[in-house]
């Protein structure tokens, strides 16, 4: 028997939000997803007054997708500092795609770095079908055309752009106080995932 169906979008998707200072996000439908939904998102750090720091945990699956390998390399070569953008595409995982996939993921980062005037400071993530090549013509055009903003709608669209079969976008944001000084800081989190979920990341 099936349990009572609940409206998860209404229950779990926030209607407003406060987001961390000096981050901007952009999203776009490039046409990679057959249904025309948003499928490309970029988050960028616009703070020029301090060096950012970054970290990541990655799948321990022996067959790591090209964007996993590329992001790990970017983090390590930058010594976990000065990473200022993350580009994510959905609809195609760019996994099991060999040298072509690696070149495509490099190209995604290169295009974002060029657009934002960054030097190898972009992480990349992909999600979707395994074993298919990225449609780089569409993604390249998308990166070129994408516009940035920092409103609630921009953040929500960013969360939507990384979804695949998700039944609702996952976006949360909270403010906290540093105990020692009372200074306020904000955490915002975006995730996607619905199936193929039992991560063991390191």
């Amino acid at each position: 028997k099936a349990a009572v169906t609940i409206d998860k979008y209404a229950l779990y998707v926030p209607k407003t939000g406060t987001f961390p200072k000096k981050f901007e996000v952009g999203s776009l439908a490039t046409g990679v997803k057959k249904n025309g939904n948003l499928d490309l998102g970029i988050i960028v750090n616009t703070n020029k007054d301090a060096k950012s720091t970054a970290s990541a945990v990655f799948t321990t699956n022996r067959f790591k997708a090209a964007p996993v390998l590329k992001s790990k390399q970017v983090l390590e070569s930058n010594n976990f500092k000065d990473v200022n953008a993350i580009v994510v595409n959905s609809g195609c995982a760019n996994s099991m795609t060999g040298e072509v996939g690696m070149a495509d993921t490099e190209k995604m980062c290169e295009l974002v770095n060029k657009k934002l005037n960054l030097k190898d400071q972009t992480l990349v993530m992909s999600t979707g079908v395994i074993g298919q090549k990225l449609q780089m013509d569409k993604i390249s055009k998308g990166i070129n055309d994408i516009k940035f903003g920092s409103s609630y709608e921009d953040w929500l669209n960013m969360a939507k752009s990384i979804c695949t079969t998700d039944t609702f976008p996952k976006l949360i944001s909270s403010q906290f106080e540093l105990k020692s000084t009372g200074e306020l800081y904000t955490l915002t989190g975006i995730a996607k995932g619905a199936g193929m979920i039992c991560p063991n990341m390191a």
Partner: protein
Amino acid sequence: TLLGYIVTDLSISSNGIKKILSFAGERSFNCISVDGDMSTNDTISMLANGAANNKTIDIDSSDFEDVAANVTSFAQQLAQLVVRDGEGATKFVTVNVTKSKSFADAKIIAETISNSSLVKTALYGEDANWGRILCAVGYSKLENFASLDESKLNVKFVATDDSIPKELPLLINGVPNLNVDEARASEILALNDLEIVVELNTGSEECSFWTCDLSHEYVTINGDYRS
């Protein structure tokens, strides 16, 4: 695939952010299961841009532990949303394995229960089939059985609303509770959120894992993913 990121305007050192994300990830995203499958792309990243103008948080800063705790609890909220989605899941289930000899054993057992297709279909069908839970505990791939003593094992369902009795013991000291209130079991299993507690009573470590039921909808969605 699980993808996600946490961004903050805090200033955190590179060593600090690595430690915080690693700690938080181990207790959040690495403690969820929808279907037991691990992707080739799973990635969670964290970015701190220092726009809050605080003194940089390092591992030895007085605020470090508090920030790490906040990020962990925040990451748990985000991870739990993934389970609540679950491609058609109708139940959000917290599996708590408590009083274990080691955290590692508690986690392996919690994960095994969370990944069991038969436990998950029973949850979907709202069937108080504790035998499947016990079975999963027994085949957990533990390095040894130091955390497991059948005669000390308790299994119970716990209601997450305000209804009473909150706890429904199904197995007590390894012996089935013959007086289990099936009507109450049905009430608890009808909740969208519920908790399974497995007390090993061999130590003091514990682990929470979050899982969901396995629904017809999951099969429908994943039956034609590529097309």
